[in-house]
């Protein structure tokens, strides 16, 4: 039996969800028996491949790059999982939204900068007007709230999806968990 293709994607988040994924510890070996990690910030693969079975997305959609990336991921993925509060609710990245993107740029690149203050127009992806939950950009198949979802929750979700069952996550996690 060929292994299922698993991927993880890191948009605008703190990487805490990926840390929680790594907290699976030796259970990662059990996952590796059934799935191959074909793309992730944790592996050296630059391009998101076609035909991915399960992709876990951490982080909100905050920049033009995030938006392009998640649209490409959606096209190439069968089951897309919104992992963690930033992906599900925009969470902390979304806290900039009430202030407007100009104020955010000014704060980061002018007010707090002594050496050559100025807003970059290349090399850094341009921010969208608002940081948004992933499901406002593309359709999502499974939602896993939590900040971050625990390793146990992530293990359960991956386990169920690898077995082809929809995970029932409400008893296991919640917003802010």
């Amino acid at each position: 039996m060929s292994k299922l293709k698993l991927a993880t994607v890191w948009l605008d988040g703190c990487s805490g969800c990926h840390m929680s994924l790594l907290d699976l510890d030796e259970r990662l070996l059990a996952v590796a028996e059934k799935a191959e990690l074909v793309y992730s910030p944790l592996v050296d693969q630059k391009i998101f491949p076609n035909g991915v079975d399960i992709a876990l997305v951490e982080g909100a959609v905050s920049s033009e790059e995030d938006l392009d990336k998640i649209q490409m991921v959606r096209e190439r993925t069968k089951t897309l999982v919104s992992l963690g509060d930033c992906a599900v609710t925009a969470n902390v990245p979304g806290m900039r939204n009430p202030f407007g993107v100009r104020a955010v740029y000014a704060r980061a690149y002018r007010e707090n900068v002594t050496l050559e203050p100025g807003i970059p127009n290349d090399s850094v992806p341009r921010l969208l007007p608002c940081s948004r939950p992933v499901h406002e950009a593309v359709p999502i198949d499974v939602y896993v709230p939590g900040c971050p979802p625990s390793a146990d929750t992530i293990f359960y979700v991956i386990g169920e999806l690898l077995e082809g069952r929809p995970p029932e996550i409400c008893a296991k996690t919640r917003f802010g968990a």
Partner: protein
Amino acid sequence: MTVAAGIKTLKIDDRDFSARAQETILDVARQNGIFIPSLCELKGLSEVGACRLCLVEIKGSNRLFPACVTPVEEGMEVTTNSERLQRYRRSILELLFTERNHVCSVCVSNGHCEMQTLAQKLEITHVRFPYRYPKAEVDASHQRFVVDHNRCILCSRCVRVCDEIEGAHTWDLKGRGIHVRVITDLDEPWGSSETCTGCGKCVHVCPTGALFEKGRSVAEMMKRRQFLPYLTLMREDRE
């Protein structure tokens, strides 16, 4: 009038119940372990039907009725958990999440919040409506307490407890629709309120992290409500 004349019999979810005439549908449901969600109702305070989460169906009407302010009637047939009600409840709660900036992960009430707990109970894993991300103030001018409008759901428990139990009526509501805010005195900073006694009852009845004690960090604000039924009971005795 005999006692029996003041007793109403009704059906809730096809089960027979009797109740005193002045009781509400929510009273009867609570006494009998029937789950009806609510975020504005709190035993010991008057009921206002602010959150609309306790909506129920009554046979013979297409309207939905807020259980907290609907008195029982003879022969009433109440449904508390139809598919339609579940759909509306979820939507109402999701809309509450979109209306302000409820960032559970960094909230003082994370893990102790009635709204967060209810969302999990109603199996809300995400919000289907676009978030509004309004600009909302935080007033930390009071010596001991903070009001964070980002987390306020306008349940008005603070307004009622301050008026009905403390007797100060420091809190009130201003504005209309989406612009409604809780205010202290005539919309002055809480810290310079002349009517606030600093009793903290508002803080402890608040269902979310909108009102909290200074110095509490993420997930540290636990609300203590034991005083409320006690105070109410003492007053009933005196009357």
